[in-house]
Structures are given as structure tokens and as C-alpha cells.
């Protein structure tokens, strides 16, 4: 039976052990809160957060990482393991006492700092100083508390998602790693890889093969990454995403105890306690490299560097168990990961990016005064687009369309037509090879790219304000479809 008293007392003891980290954290967070609160400005509906304040909050993430590795020192330091594992705590209690220590060293000061920052910003953010004709200072207040409060809450949630992500990845790494060096660099490596992984998969795999992108990014774009990648504070979806990110991190942190319970001091000193965990890190990192650098045969230099990096990392991690024969096995694993990646990409190609992206925008997205449509259909006979003289262009057109008098429906029908044609695109190996490695396109295949952007407002002086790009597509088609689409596009442009 877990005892909270023991957990709390264990955490009290650990606070003594990590006094310096606590002091540094409190100083950084206190200054971050004060600077953010005083330097954040607000005018009407606009809030300009303090860049220095935000920077200091980010600086405070360094002691957070340091704290997460230090409180789990018993996982990678034999004398500390002797002391801590002999203490009257169960392994689960020990795990939760460490988490409570992290809360008390970092999270509680952070919430206090954030509350202080909100209070100060509420007091000063709407105050604007200026000088009158006689050089006398005067100030005015345009304070919109609800705007500032919503903004600050978004900011808190956004930062909290990043904080919990760091804690989750670092703590799980501590539970799976038994050596000090690995407990520092592998979490950093994994956090970086995970943060780039979902956007990279979305951009290069899903969108790359889905051929069609409607406005906005899909939900997974910022799923369990540093939330800094998604800062659209106005979007309800992003708020939900941050909450989901926080929940995933909390789930991962909770599950960490089960890994922790499987360890005794025997595994302390072993760089990697659970080999599968290391392979997950390798798989994520290498897949990321493959996804980012697969597009050209020249990227083999990068592939070689990835192989070299993976071998060096494995040599470091294997310590004295290294033998030259293992390089062959590791190379085989590298090739294996690449084959898995190719299969993954081929399935993405066959299924049009796993079919996760909706093919057409919602009717509400056509709201605006006009739209700009760019369409290009080309038969590309070489791998390089700039060898234009080799290419046969069917259509290369950009035109504006008023969205009044039934044009909205016509544009919607045009977009539906494009999507239908895209769904019929040939899924042949030649195209896969072209998309993966930039080989020549198979003969008789055409590339079509379409971009539709709404215009929000026209001004009297002839200028206008662009809205969102609501539809973007790039896909391959055969000659008859190319001719058909060129005809439809020309009709839309002429207004028929």
C-alpha cells in the first residue's frame, strides 16, 4: 500500500539534496515572472508578450532538465543507489517522491511565478506612456482584461505542455538508462527527434503522398512535441491540442513507475537497461533522418552520416562489450530500419498519405470577397523542373475570381473536380520512385498543382487583404485527366 506520508517525507529529503537547483530555479522563475508581467503590453485586442520574459521562462527549462536527471540519480549512480534503494520506501513510492520533488523544485515556483506575471501584466499591460507637446509624460490605459486573461491562460497552457513533455521524456529516459552520460544526452536527442518527428511525418509523408492539403494543419502536427511548434492562440483546436499534449505527458509520466519498478541496483551502471528502449530512440531518430533526407539520391551523403552517427552512438553505448563484428550487425539493423521506412513510405504512397487529410475544404471556408486560383499542369520529362524547355505545359494560369453571383458554388465545384481527379491518380512504382528519390517521372504522367486562396477584403485604393489558403493540391494524372482539368480551369477563368 502506497503511503503519501512516506512519499512526502522522501521528497523532503530530496529537497535537501537538490537545494542549489531549487535556488537557481526560484531566482530564474521569479525574474521571468516580474519581467514578463512588467514588459508585456496590451493595446485593445492585441497583446505583445515580453520577449525577455518568455526567454527567461525558457532559460528556466535548463534547471528543470537538470532537476529531472538529478532526482533520479539513483538510476545511474551506484553509491546513490545503495543509499536510496535501501531507504524504507517501495519503488513506486520512491518514483512518486521524485516526481513530487520535481513539482516542488520547479512546478510550484513556476505556477507562483506565472500567477505573479499575470497579476503584474493585468496591472501594467494596458498602460501606455507618451509625451505631450511640452514634453510632459502622460499615460493612458486601454485595458481589456478578458483579452489579456485569455492570452495569458493560453500562454500558460502552451508552456505547461512543453514543461510536461520535457519531464515525461526525461523521466522515462532516466528509468531506462543506467549510466550518467546517457542519462543526459539521450533524453535531449529523443526530445529533439520527437519534436520534429510528427511535423516531419505530416509534411513529408502524409502531405507528401496525400497530394491535397486543405487549410490549417492536421491535429497530429503538434502531437506530443514541443508545443512551441504550434502557437496559434486563437484556435480552439490548438487549445485542445495543448491539453491533449499535457494529458499524454502525464500518462507517460505515470507509466514511468512501472519501468522503475522493474529495476534494482543491478542495472545501475549499465548504459542501456532496456535494449528495446534504445532501439526505439534509434528508430525514431533514423526514421526522422530518412524522412527528412530521402528526396534525392545525393542525400546518400546524409544517409552515410546517419549510419556513421548511429554506429558511433552504438559504440559509445556498448562500452566494453564492443567488438568489430557488431558493426556488421548494427549496419544490418540500419538497413532493416531503412527497409521498414521504405515500406512505410510505400504504404503512404498507395493509400494517399494514409487518407487522413480531408479532400475538400468545408463550405464555410469560401467566405470572402474573392479568391485567387493558381493552376499549373505540366508533363515533366526530366527530374529537374528548371529544365523547362523539356517540359510540356498544359496550363499555367493564375487568376482572380469574385465570390459573388454564384461563383462560390462554381469554385467549390472546381475544387471538388480537382479532388476527384487527384483521387484517381496512378499509383505506379515509377511515380513512387519519382516522389521518393526524384527520379524522372514516368512517361505520359503529368503533374498538377493547384492553390486556392480567399481574399478577405478589397479596399477603396485598389489594395486587398488576403485570407487563408484554403486548398492546395499537387498530384499526378494521365493525359486525358490533364486535358479535362485544363478545360475546367479555363472555363472557370473565363467565367462560364
Amino acid at each position, binding site marked *: 500500500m502506497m503511503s503519501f506520508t512516506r512519499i512526502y517525507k*522522501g521528497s523532503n529529503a530530496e529537497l535537501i*539534496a537538490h537545494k542549489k537547483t531549487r535556488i537557481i530555479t526560484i531566482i530564474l522563475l521569479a525574474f521571468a515572472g516580474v519581467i514578463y508581467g512588467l514588459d508585456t503590453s496590451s493595446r485593445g485586442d492585441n497583446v505583445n508578450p515580453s520577449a525577455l520574459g518568455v526567454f527567461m521562462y525558457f532559460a528556466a527549462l535548463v534547471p528543470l532538465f537538470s532537476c529531472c536527471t538529478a532526482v533520479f540519480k539513483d538510476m545511474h549512480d551506484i*553509491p546513490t543507489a545503495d543509499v536510496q534503494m*535501501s531507504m*524504507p*520506501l517501495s519503488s513506486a513510492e520512491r518514483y512518486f517522491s521524485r516526481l513530487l520533488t520535481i513539482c516542488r523544485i520547479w512546478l510550484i515556483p513556476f505556477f507562483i511565478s506565472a500567477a505573479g506575471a499575470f497579476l503584474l501584466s493585468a496591472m501594467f499591460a494596458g498602460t501606455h506612456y507618451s509625451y505631450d507637446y511640452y514634453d510632459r509624460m502622460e499615460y493612458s490605459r486601454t485595458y481589456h482584461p478578458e483579452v489579456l486573461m485569455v492570452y495569458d491562460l493560453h500562454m500558460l497552457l502552451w508552456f505547461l505542455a512543453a514543461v510536461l513533455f520535457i519531464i515525461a521524456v526525461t523521466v522515462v529516459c532516466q528509468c531506462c538508462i543506467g549510466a550518467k552520460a546517457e542519462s543526459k544526452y539521450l533524453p535531449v536527442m529523443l526530445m529533439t527527434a520527437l519534436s520534429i518527428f510528427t511535423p516531419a511525418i505530416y509534411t513529408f509523408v502524409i502531405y507528401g503522398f496525400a497530394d491535397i492539403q486543405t487549410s490549417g494543419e492536421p491535429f497530429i502536427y503538434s502531437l506530443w512535441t514541443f508545443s512551441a511548434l504550434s502557437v496559434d492562440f486563437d484556435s480552439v483546436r490548438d487549445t485542445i491540442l495543448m491539453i491533449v499534449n499535457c494529458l499524454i505527458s502525464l500518462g507517460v509520466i505515470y507509466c514511468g513507475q512501472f519501468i522503475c519498478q522493474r529495476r*534494482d541496483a543491478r542495472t545501475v551502471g549499465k548504459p542501456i537497461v532496456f535494449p528495446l528502449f534504445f532501439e526505439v530512440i534509434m528508430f525514431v531518430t533514423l526514421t526522422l533522418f530518412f524522412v527528412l533526407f530521402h528526396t534525392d539520391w545525393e542525400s546518400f551523403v546524409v544517409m552515410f552520416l546517419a549510419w556513421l552517427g548511429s554506429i558511433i552512438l552504438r559504440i559509445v553505448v556498448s*562500452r*566494453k562489450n564492443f567488438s568489430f563484428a557488431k558493426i556488421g550487425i548494427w549496419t544490418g539493423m540500419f538497413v532493416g530500419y531503412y527497409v521498414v521506412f521504405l515500406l512505410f513510405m510505400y504504404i503512404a504512397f498507395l493509400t494517399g498519405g494514409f487518407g487522413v487529410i480531408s479532400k475538400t475544404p468545408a463550405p464555410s471556408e469560401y467566405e470572402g470577397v474573392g479568391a485567387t486560383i493558381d493552376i499549373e499542369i505540366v508533363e515533366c520529362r526530366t527530374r529537374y523542373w528548371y529544365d523547362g524547355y523539356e517540359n510540356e505545359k498544359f496550363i499555367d494560369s493564375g487568376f482572380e475570381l469574385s465570390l459573388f453571383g454564384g461563383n462560390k458554388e462554381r469554385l467549390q465545384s472546381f475544387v471538388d473536380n480537382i479532388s476527384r481527379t487527384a483521387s484517381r491518380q496512378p499509383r505506379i512504382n515509377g511515380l513512387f520512385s519519382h516522389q521518393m528519390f526524384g527520379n524522372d517521372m514516368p512517361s505520359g504522367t503529368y503533374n498538377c498543382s493547384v492553390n486556392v486562396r480567399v481574399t478577405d477584403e478589397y479596399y477603396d485604393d485598389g489594395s486587398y487583404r488576403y485570407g487563408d489558403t484554403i486548398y492546395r493540391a499537387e498530384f499526378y494524372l494521365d493525359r486525358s485527366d490533364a486535358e479535362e482539368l485544363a478545360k475546367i480551369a479555363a472555363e472557370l477563368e473565363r467565367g462560364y
Partner: protein
Amino acid sequence: MIEISNASMIFDNDSAVRFGKKAPEGYEHRDKALNDVSLTIPDGCIYGFLGSNGAGKSTLMRMICGVYKTDMGSIKIDGQEVYDNPEAKKNIFFVNDETIEYTSYTLSALKNYYSNYYDTFDSDTYNRLLGVLKLPETSPLSTFSKGMKRQAVAIIGLACHTKYLMLDEAFDGLDPAMRAVIKDMILGEIRSRSATLIISSHNIREIGELCDRAMLIHSGKLVFADEISKIKSRFRKLQLASLSHTITPEEITAADIGIMQYKAEGRVVQVIVKDSEGLDEKVSTLGAELYEQIPLTLEEIFIYEMNLKGYGQ
């Protein structure tokens, strides 16, 4: 009472390399750091763990305090399985053979640290022992000598008032004068509370002087474990001489006397024997004109036992 029943533990191969041991036959890829050890440590005794380097003393201590999990068998403190069990672990305090983990603390911080973990921590005992040893309370332990760190940890260990105190290489790094002071201090505290002390040391004479009971472990296997007086009574050095001939090892074995070591100088034979029961009667069949029995010290027993196991040869 601490009951260890058929306890075994396996290190991974790479750990075995670190411990400088060779994997036994059948365990080429795995190495048993402890092999089927059964032992009972009664309450209120002072128990000495003896063994060569890497024999498994520290491993056994770590298993007793729940740092290592037993792969086979069980270790119980007062009837409760110790691993991952705070109720059993609150009765035991373990000091390992290193003090490096304490260097960032001051003695007063160390007191606060342990008092959070052990409800039985007694500040009066701490203050009293600190008064005896006169250690600086507010200086970091990194400024202490090795011996001073040992003293500091001993104060903390005794102040925790646990039923069992385990000290690995207890008096390592202490000068002879301080060794005596610390020994008296520990023994006084332990006896006044009828607590149990388990110590390991390479100084066998010290173990012999301090302990009521001892055990010897070699290559993870228990060689013997008993009250020290009984252990000593089982081993004898015999000096035999016959005027007619030199008594040979075969004759001694034929008289059902277990030989650990045999040495002859002329007609005088010196034999180390184990299992001294009925020794006089057995020796009488050898026809020795001169016969003398000398008891062995614990240190001699250790050396002869280890020689018998091929240690150091």
C-alpha cells in the same frame, strides 16, 4: 531475525566482468554473484561477514537491505520479505563501503536527510555522539577526510535507531585510535538497545574480537556460518611426532581425520584439521609419541579455508 533462505542472485555478464569474476560452468553467459545461500541472523547479535574480494559479502548485504532483488530464494526481516517492502526496510540501516555519495551534504543536512526517511531518528543520540566525535556540523562532507566521513555516517546510522545496522567495510580509513573510539561507540550503542550489528571487514582479527557470530562466503557460496566459538572449536592445528617414522597424510586420512593442510619437518608433522570431534581418540590410533592440539585464530581459519578453495594460488 533475518532469515536468508536459498538466496541466489545473477549479475549480467558485463557486471560480472566489473566484479572481476569468471562465470562458472553452465552459467557462461550469466554469473551467479550469490549461489544458494541460507543463513539466519538472530536478533541482538553482532554478525561478521567474511570473504575474499568479490566473494559476495557486499552483494549479500545489498540484498538484505533490498538494494538487489533475489533471483531465487527469499530474504525476510522479522518474517517480512525485504525487497520493495518499506515496513521491513525501516528496520535496517545500510552503510556501503563508499562515502562519495555524501560529499555534497553537511552533517546537519545529512541528519535532516535521514530523519525524513527514518521515523525512529533520534536527535538526542545524534547530538550525544556528535559531542563525542566533535565533527564540524556545518562544513560540507567533501572537506572531510575519509575517516571523518566514516565517523559522520556512523553517527547518522546509530542515530537512526534501526533494529539492524549493516556496515560494509566498517572501519576502513580510520586511524587505529579512532578505530577504537568508533568501535566502542558502535558497540555501546548497539548493546544498549539490543540491536543487531552486521559488519564486513577484511580485518579478520577485528571481526574475531567484535562479533559473536560470523560467516565465510567464497565465490558466492556460503562456506560456514556459526557462533565464532563453535567455528573455532571445529578447527585445530595438530603437531605429531613419532620416533619410528614420519606420519604420512595417508595414515592420518585412514584415521578418519580431515586434513586441510599437511607439513612435515623431519619426524615432526604439523596438520591443520577440520571437524575436530573425537580427535584425541582418532589421533591415538596413529601411534604418535608426541601429540599437541593448538586452537586456530579466526584469521588462520580464514586463510586455511581460502587455501583449500584454491584462492590466491
